[in-house]
């Protein structure tokens, strides 16, 4: 990384935030911000930190955050008011943990569905929590009355304890909690987990294919958001000495979403800014004669305008404008390189590539590590009456380039998808070094050392080349799910070394910090292959790696594939038969879903049945 990581620079946002939080209670009250208002803004901001990790970073829009806000709040308030727990701090901790547990339960159900469904389910569970609070648990929660008389926390013990009463002391407490919460959230964003969450937002399917446990990471983001919400809820009851039931209301979840959009999604600080604007307008517009009743209508119209035109929100827009000039220059530069490349078609230095791939780590082969890397046994896939693949068996020997060819509709793609468990077979099985892959799912298959580059690029458009490869390299180094939330993403030396080696081998050194969507087509293809490689697989599946490439790029990619095959097994599906006959050690021919022939390239080239299949059986009895 080129970033100059001075100790001060690394904590610059926290430093600025600390200064602002210190100055705010002295500078802002004349503008209509009372201590109470500032405290409420910080409380919403704290709730928003978790929500921004869930929505801004991971892309999961929840309309049910009120549930966790409410659980944290009511558990804390009940424990304190009923006298079951004396220490406010302890009660806050228990309340936060309860919200996290509830988040684990709801999240477990919600992350099974994506997009629209996820939002609907979170909203519905938010409503469920509201009704549970309101009726069945009203003996504990006070139902519609809420819980009054929640005590404030104290600093110190016994006689000398200082109560953090409403006003400036409470503001101070919330400011410290928010600052700590912000610092933690920023660490999470910059951790390996943060990088993976970002990649999930960009292309969920590819993250799973690289070997990361996508539902697990989504659930982690969900629980983190619930914990932040629980803590904010607990503090809410404490600082207004009353826990209101409308913390649970759908309106609360909605207001959080609106504030986050207004302030800026994916900026962490955005929800706080949005809350400041929303609450200030509410408190102050209501005082304006003739306007008071309209405040929410005006905000609603403004919100629609923001979503239509300024979706980045205030903080997002400011950051975007500050970066834009610098980014534009960089983009022009990148685009110029792209254009030059598209005209010339750069080659890859094969010899260095060979050395590099040989040094990439291999997964430990499972079972009895024999000479057969991948074994396909009686594999079939039927779609109704259509037999896309019908009882196909063959072995792929370790360290070879094995090609699967066949006319259109022969079942190559379906077969390929079954090798990595993207499609589950109707019958039959696939063995990797004797270990059964079938039924394990795509993530587990990737963890065992099978990687695939796709026919259509599956990239992370807004991640740089280095970040994309890092997501890939992290998968097998860290296992399918690991919550190293405060470690910097680039702090794993073996991962970084692996990423550097792949960048060198792909010839993408000058492009390492370029976002994937700006790359030239050939470079995108190489990155697609590179991401599969960066996982350090034993078996690499290449689905039409040469598709759409210029002649020069084809040559370069062919050399690249040869270099890869020095140290690992390559299985390749390709339409370019010239390239296949030069590259492959062994060829399997499919025709109408069945195995037609298998053997050395020379044998296949002479095979009468193969020629018939490719020429549609014309030349046998008709003049071609």
């Amino acid at each position, binding site marked *: 990384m080129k970033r100059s990581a001075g100790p001060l620079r690394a904590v610059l946002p926290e430093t600025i935030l600390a200064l602002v939080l210190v100055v705010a209670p002295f500078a802002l009250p004349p503008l209509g911000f009372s201590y109470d208002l500032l405290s409420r803004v910080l409380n919403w901001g704290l709730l928003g930190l978790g929500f921004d990790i869930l*929505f801004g970073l991971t*892309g999961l*829009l929840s309309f049910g955050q009120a549930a966790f806000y409410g659980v944290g709040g009511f558990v804390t308030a009940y424990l304190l008011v009923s006298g079951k727990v004396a220490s406010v701090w302890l009660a806050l901790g228990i309340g936060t943990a309860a919200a996290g547990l509830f988040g684990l339960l709801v999240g477990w*159900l919600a992350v*099974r*569905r*994506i*997009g*629209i*469904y996820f*939002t*609907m*389910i979170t*909203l*519905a*569970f938010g*409503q*469920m929590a509201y*009704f*549970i609070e309101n*009726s*069945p648990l*009203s003996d504990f929660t006070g139902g519609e009355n809420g819980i009054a008389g929640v005590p404030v926390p104290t600093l110190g013990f016994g006689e000398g304890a200082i109560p953090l009463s409403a006003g400036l002391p409470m503001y101070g407490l919330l400011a410290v909690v928010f600052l700590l919460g912000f610092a933690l959230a920023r660490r999470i964003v910059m951790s390996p987990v943060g990088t993976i969450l970002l990649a999930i937002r960009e292309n969920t399917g590819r993250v799973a294919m690289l070997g990361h446990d996508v539902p697990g990471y989504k659930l982690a983001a969900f629980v983190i958001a619930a914990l932040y919400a629980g803590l904010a809820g607990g503090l809410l009851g404490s600082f207004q000495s009353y826990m209101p039931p409308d913390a649970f209301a*759908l*309106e609360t979840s*909605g207001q959080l*979403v*609106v504030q986050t*959009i207004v302030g800026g999604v994916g900026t962490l600080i955005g929800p706080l800014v949005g809350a400041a604007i929303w609450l200030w307008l509410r408190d102050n517009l209501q005082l304006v004669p003739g306007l008071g*009743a*309209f405040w*929410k*209508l005006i*905000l*609603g*119209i403004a*919100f*629609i305008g923001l*979503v*239509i035109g300024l*979706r980045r929100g205030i903080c997002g827009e400011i950051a975007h404008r500050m970066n834009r000039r610098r980014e534009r220059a960089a983009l022009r530069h990148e685009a110029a390189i792209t254009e030059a490349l598209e005209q010339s078609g750069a080659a890859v230095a094969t010899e260095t590539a060979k050395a590099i791939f040989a040094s990439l780590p291999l997964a430990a082969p499972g079972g009895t590590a024999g000479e057969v890397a991948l074994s396909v046994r009686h594999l079939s896939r039927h779609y109704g009456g259509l037999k896309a693949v019908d009882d196909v068996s063959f072995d792929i020997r370790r360290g070879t380039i094995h090609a699967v060819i066949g006319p259109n509709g022969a079942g190559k793609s379906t077969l390929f998808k079954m090798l990595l468990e993207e499609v589950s077979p109707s019958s039959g099985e696939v063995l990797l070094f004797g270990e059964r892959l079938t039924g394990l799912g795509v993530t587990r298959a990737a963890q065992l050392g099978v990687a695939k580059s796709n026919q259509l690029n599956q990239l992370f458009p807004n991640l740089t080349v280095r970040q994309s490869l890092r997501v890939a390299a992290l998968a097998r180094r860290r296992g399918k799910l690991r919550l190293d939330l405060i470690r910097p993403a680039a702090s794993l030396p073996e991962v970084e070394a692996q990423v550097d080696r792949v960048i060198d081998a792909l010839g993408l050194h000058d492009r390492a910090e370029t976002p994937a969507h700006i790359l030239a087509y050939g470079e995108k293809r190489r990155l697609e292959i590179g991401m599969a490689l960066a996982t350090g697989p034993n078996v690499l599946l290449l689905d039409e790696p040469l598709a759409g490439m210029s002649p020069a790029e084809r040559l370069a990619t062919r050399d690249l594939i040869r270099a890869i095959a020095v140290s690992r097994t390559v299985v390749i599906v390709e339409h370019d038969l010239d390239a296949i006959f030069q590259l492959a050690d062994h060829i399997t021919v499919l025709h109408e879903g069945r195995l037609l022939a298998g053997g050395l390239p020379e044998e296949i080239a002479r095979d009468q049945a193969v020629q018939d299949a490719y020429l549609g059986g014309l030349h046998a009895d008709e003049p071609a």
Partner: protein
Amino acid sequence: MPSWATLMSQAFNGLALGTLLALVSSGLTIILGTLGVLNFAHGALFTVGAYAIFVIFQYTSSFLLALLIGSLFMLALGLLLERIIVRLFYDRPHEDQILVTYGVGIVLVEALRTGFGSHAQRVRLPSWGTGVSELGFMMYPTYRLQLIGMVAALLVTLYLVLYRTSLGLIVRAGIDNPGMVGILGIDVRRTFMIVFAVGCVAVGLAGMLYAPVVAVSPDMGASFMAQSFVVIVLGGLGSFPGAVIGGLIAGEIIAITSAFNSAYSEVMLYGVMALILVLRPQGLFGSEGRV
């Protein structure tokens, strides 16, 4: 254990609520299935419908005429919303569509609040709907019986539109494969506009028919929207039969649970949704593989 009569009357209440939920959810599901947009303004549109009948019924003595005018109003509102806002969002992420329709919902509800105040309004029963009817085995409010009949008639109409007209064919094709419909040379934009408006009329009519039985207030739609989400999760995405049967199931769950302990009626509904999510995540009538 509640008496048999209570259970019976609650079953009828469940039928009334269920058919209503079915109508609300059908509107939501045809918009969702065809346009791919989850309309977060749906609850607000329900409320708009209720206020529409509240206003119009003051100027005309005929409830049916008021329903007709109200439907035309909802149609116009739907066309307008699609034309100036929703249309901008077809190519944007689902999240943006949800956000902007949520914003539309806020504006609609707040406009009603500004115009009519926050307090509850009463809509009188139509003259032919007052009193109770003797069903032989129990007495039941006449209008509620008529409500069930009218909503059922509307659902049948919607079914005929969806399954017996060329527009319906396009809508169902669009639910199956949104990309393909455009490729076939059908004017998708026009179809989208009509479907959105039809969805608005469906939910608006639900609001209008429900208005005489409840207090009309600006926030009445929110819980209906949440419940219609549950119906969609139960029934499956974009499935009209799923919306109808899911609606009836949801209505009966709420009503029958109320007969035992009204505190648990809503909780039970969401509990059943959680159960369905575990056992059959695609919903009762949904197919595997759809979002």
